């Protein structure tokens, strides 16, 4: 599975959302991406990429696109 497939899977499993709805998705755009859903997503990503996200990065993780930039800090390149 590629990194983008893993990344999308984390979103789809956390929010029960179709893959074609992910582009441009932001925090609170959908009901399931609330504060609890956000923690679910963080846990999925940490498991998937075997990283531990800092609190500042969790707070800054406000959109599908921004998340890719944040994961780069952990040497996880989603678009490669």
């Amino acid at each position, binding site marked *: 599975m590629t990194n983008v497939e893993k990344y999308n899977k984390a979103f789809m499993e956390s929010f029960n959302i179709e893959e074609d709805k992910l582009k441009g998705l932001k*925090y*609170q755009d959908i009901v399931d991406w609330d*504060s*609890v859903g956000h923690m679910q997503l*963080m846990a999925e990503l940490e498991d998937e990429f075997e990283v531990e996200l800092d*609190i500042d990065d969790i*707070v800054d*993780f*406000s959109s599908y696109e921004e998340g890719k930039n944040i994961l780069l800090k952990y040497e996880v390149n989603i678009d490669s």
Partner: protein
Amino acid sequence: MSNSELLSFDIVGIQECQQNRYPQLFVDSIFDVDPGKSARGLKNFTYNEWFFPAHFEGDPNVPGHIQIECLVQTFIMTFLSMEPYKGMKTNFVRINNANFKRKVIPGDRLEINATLDSFKRGIAKGSAESFVGNEIACSADFIITLPDVLENFKPSKK
């Protein structure tokens, strides 16, 4: 943790850890608490409980939602017994696999065993089951949040 190091809480101690109060407090004592891991609870039901006359006349038994509260009020002590979280408010996120196996009636002594499977960033996942004597009464899996902790991790911008 050895048995001698396990924590116990009487009704005053329980109220220092959790915000449930009469008539919504449904555990009498909590014991064998291994903070961050497990806890056991006890609830003695007498006919003086406020709900027995209403549930039901001629057949008093403990409503299912109160049995679930007994489970979860024991479960939350697995993490509310830890100093940073003592006294914090908790919210339900999910109750799964709730099973009711035995009617609980006045005079029954309910014993509850709770296990915390994970606790991270204000989200607790785990399970609890209750017994009357050796008979299982009910069981359920829980996801519970601490909203005050969760608040620290919310994205700051939309």
